[in-house]
């Protein structure tokens, strides 16, 4: 309105977000003339609104209406005439040398971590991590911001390697993280509704880097699942500039932000085609698929009818549903007569009224119980990992780090050890 | 006792009768022999010598110290033995464990519990010192130790083994919340607070090492549960809540510090609307049993007070009636930074509420000279964002 149509505009925002909005607009150059009634204005009686309008702007202490009128009538100041978008200084490549203890404190007190112990990203460790890809360390991988209008931060292959070292990763994990970074999706997008994310890996890389697709895959019992999921959150904090109360506004927050429900799909025991093949990738290609939502119902038992009922009863803001199910469930759905995921999608669309494309299925688990997990997660995208893998293959340690393998149930007999 | 087990193929649940007939007439896949004759044999073949005098191999006591080794090899040892959650740990050197033990006056060798993630397998015993070892590994400081000792003493694992992927929740009340810098406000359940992160993780590491959790062997969760990483570790927002704190409702004094442990499966985090909507959601909730723990932002508690619910008890009675369930199955926690009047419905049931004070040193919580604090979220300054 202001620039294009030359019509003065008086934006109104509730006082709760005053600091945020003023800082945000300063960083965008244009000094819009905001006025701030008390928060919130939703779900409250009319009488309160009348008082707000007759009362003062709690942020500035001046009468609200006077502020609104001034916004449209007081002549422009010099500063308002020529807006400046402040150019923020870049961060140094290296931090000042210090003792390990002080550096651990610096990373925590600066809010560069998730609060858990990190491996300090020394030059030596970052160099070793970079052997996990042939890509040039200075190649820009993408830009990210957890908020919508904030300045995005740009990051290179080396910056991804720095966060990989911090998370406890090895070079063999780097291609997966570079693929995630290339999507430019933060794992904790800022919303007062507290978003969660989910990460599913498909293709040969799952086995090569020892991910867990079977028993207890979603629990903290697998090295790759843990450090890859965590690295995505560290990247989101450091590339997306997540600062709680400032850019990150999730009221309660979401516990899944720690690991982002990271797993490998159990393609071997699933009777359906793998998720990435559904999205047009070849089975032998390795990919990451990203989802985002709020609700995770961890305990589902019963047939397709029951699954649809649970999804229907799930109050959610988005008409979407993503099921994560044990191979036993997938096989019992086949027995129920659903030959392909497409048929499943049609059935669920009918039962819930959601569009078929918005319903997803993935198979994971160790076949100790025919269980399924219901979520309202929306699928955002699938990204190839292969282009980040070195020419001569995934860079593995001489003796790759592996946690004890869960005893995966061999098909059919699936005996349980004593 | 060498019971004579006979193994039909898995599973026997949710499959058609003809298939079961096939199992009975078929082969025991483990032994390769016909199933029924094996069953008859189990009842008729005479006892072997071994079966006559059962012997249970007594597991040897573990040494207090591990053989000295380089840092790198020790990291590998901890990961390859499955003693961690996969994320980096701080190696528990004698020096660090001694420093951690200054967090309590209790005798390091005092046995404070036995735990197993299963109901029937051998429980592992642990001392105050062992809890300190876990605390160091998790990245804690001495100020966190009292909370961990209180949790350890309940002998409750964070993920009791069942094939149905349990998850748990830690909720702290009382003065200790602010003394050790826990987050009960904005983004409390997200990884932005040092104490919330390391305390939640420590319970997982305890459950692995004291509960002897070994996937596929003692730990049978088919899919697992992502909440097992941090166990929803947070503190209740007593200051901004319109209701009395959780622990006061359970009979503790406000100035007492307590930790409450919950257990459940479902986290249903995105709901708006008045008490009626809460009852409706609980009624529709699909889960085993009709238990419900509501996790609500302080704004919701203020709305509910406006709706006329003076106490949690009044609200509990109303919701129980509307949702046709038992009042004592319903609990309320207030946490959040008042940027959105939302509430989450979970099917979590409280296992226990225990005092933390008995584990705190006489001279008070042992704080570092300059305690480590991550950036504090900018909380809503009272007044301009109140109702």
């Amino acid at each position, binding site marked *: 309105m202001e620039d294009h149509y030359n019509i003065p505009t008086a934006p109104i925002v509730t006082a709760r977000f005053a600091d945020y909005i003023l800082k945000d607009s300063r960083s965008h150059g244009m000094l819009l003339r905001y006025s701030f009634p008390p928060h919130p204005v939703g779900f409250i009686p009319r009488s309160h609104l009348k008082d707000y309008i007759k009362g003062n702007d709690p942020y500035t202490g001046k009468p609200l209406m006077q502020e609104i009128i001034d916004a449209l009538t007081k002549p422009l100041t010099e500063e308002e005439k020529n807006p400046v978008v402040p150019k923020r200084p870049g961060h140094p490549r290296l931090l000042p040398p210090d003792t390990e203890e002080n550096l651990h404190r610096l990373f925590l007190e600066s809010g560069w971590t998730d609060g858990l112990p990190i491996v300090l990203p020394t030059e030596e460790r970052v160099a070793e991590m970079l052997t996990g890809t042939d890509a040039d360390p200075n190649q820009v991988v993408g830009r990210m911001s957890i908020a919508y209008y904030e300045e995005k931060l740009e990051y290179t292959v080396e910056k991804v390697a720095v966060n990989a070292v911090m998370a406890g990763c090895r070079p063999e994990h780097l291609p997966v993280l570079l693929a995630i970074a290339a999507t430019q999706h933060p794992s904790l997008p800022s919303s007062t509704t507290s978003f969660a994310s989910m990460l599913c890996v498909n293709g040969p890389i799952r086995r090569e880097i020892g991910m867990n697709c079977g028993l207890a895959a979603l629990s903290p019992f697998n090295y790759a699942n843990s450090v890859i999921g965590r690295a995505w959150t560290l990247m989101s904090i450091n590339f997306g500039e997540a600062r709680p109360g400032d850019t990150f506004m999730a009221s309660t927050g979401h516990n899944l932000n720690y690991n982002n429900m990271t797993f490998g799909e159990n393609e071997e025991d699933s009777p359906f085609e793998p998720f990435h093949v559904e999205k047009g990738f070849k089975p032998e290609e390795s990919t990451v698929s990203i989802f985002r939502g709020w609700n995770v119902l961890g305990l589902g038992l019963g047939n397709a009818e029951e699954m649809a009922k649970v999804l229907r009863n799930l109050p959610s803001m988005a008409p979407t549903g993503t099921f994560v199910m044990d191979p036993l469930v997938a096989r019992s759905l086949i027995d129920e007569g659903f030959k392909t995921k497409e048929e499943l999608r049609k059935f669920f669309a009918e039962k819930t009224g959601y569009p078929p494309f918005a319903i997803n299925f993935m198979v994971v688990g160790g076949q100790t119980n025919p269980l399924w997990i219901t979520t309202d997660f929306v699928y955002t995208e699938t990204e190839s990992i292969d282009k980040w893998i070195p020419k001569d293959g995934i860079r593995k340690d001489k003796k790759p780090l592996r946690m004890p393998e869960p005893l995966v149930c061999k098909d059919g007999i699936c005996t349980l050890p004593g | 006792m060498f019971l004579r087990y006979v193994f039909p193929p898995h599973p*026997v649940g949710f499959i058609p009768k003809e298939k079961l007939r096939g*199992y009975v007439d078929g082969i025991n896949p483990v032994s390769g022999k016909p199933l029924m004759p094996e069953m008859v044999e189990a009842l*008729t073949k005479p006892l072997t010598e071994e079966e006559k005098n059962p012997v249970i191999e007594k597991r040897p006591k573990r040494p207090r110290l591990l053989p000295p080794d380089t840092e790198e090899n020790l990291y590998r040892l901890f990961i390859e033995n499955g003693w961690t959650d996969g994320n980096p740990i701080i190696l528990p050197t004698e020096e660090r464990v001694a420093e951690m033990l200054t967090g309590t006056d209790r005798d390091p060798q005092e046995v404070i519990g036995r735990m197993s993630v299963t109901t029937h397998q051998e429980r592992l015993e642990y001392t105050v010192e062992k809890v300190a070892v*876990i605390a160091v590994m998790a990245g804690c400081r001495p100020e966190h130790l009292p909370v961990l000792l209180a949790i350890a003493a309940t002998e409750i694992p964070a993920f009791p083994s069942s094939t149905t992927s349990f998850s748990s929740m830690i909720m702290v009340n009382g003065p200790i919340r602010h003394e050790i810098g826990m987050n009960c406000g904005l983004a409390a359940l997200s990884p932005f607070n040092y104490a919330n992160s390391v305390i939640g993780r420590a319970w997982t590491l305890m459950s692995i090492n004291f509960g002897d959790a070994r996937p596929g062997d003692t730990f049978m969760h088919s899919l697992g549960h992502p909440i097992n990483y941090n166990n929803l570790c947070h503190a209740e927002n007593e200051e901004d809540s319109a209701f009395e704190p959780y622990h006061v409702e359970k009979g503790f004094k406000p100035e007492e510090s307590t930790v409450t442990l919950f257990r459940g499966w479902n986290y249903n985090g995105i709901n708006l609307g008045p008490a009626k909507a809460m009852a409706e959601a609980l009624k529709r909730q699909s889960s085993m049993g009709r238990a419900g723990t509501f996790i609500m932002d302080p704004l919701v508690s203020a709305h509910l007070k406006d709706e006329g619910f003076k106490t949690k008890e009044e609200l509990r009675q109303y919701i129980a009636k509307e949702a046709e369930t038992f009042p004592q199955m319903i609990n309320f926690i207030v946490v959040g930074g008042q940027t959105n009047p939302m509430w989450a419905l979970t099917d979590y*049931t409280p296992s226990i509420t225990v005092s933390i004070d008995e584990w705190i040193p006489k001279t008070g919580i042992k704080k570092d000279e300059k305690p480590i604090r991550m950036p504090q979220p900018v909380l809503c300054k009272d007044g301009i964002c109140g109702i």
Partner: protein
Amino acid sequence: MSKKLLTVLDPKGQPSGIFGKVLDLKNPMAILDPEKQPTSTLEAMIGQKMADRLDTLEGKTVYLVETGFAGAADFMKEVEGWFQRNMPSVKTVMRSKRGNMFTDDPELWQEIKEHGDAAIVGVGG
């Protein structure tokens, strides 16, 4: 990582010789609280002996006890069918264990003691 040698403490709990025991019917929810769960010791468990086996099942009474897991009852019916087809002289008695799959059922064991020669119990899983 420096090559210096470090000594660290062992993080695992110590074997305690204490084992969980089947729950008594009066308190089926005890499973949720370790302190209330009945326990047994290594010594007590070693003291338990297995029963002498029967010379044959022909003409005997065999109790088929289903423990409550999904599919157990159907499975036991199939076992009963097998006996009727292959060993008709065996008298089978179908029973469901009271409480849930984790609780003891002393009355049922007493009944089997009085009227039965053997028991087939299942299906765990």
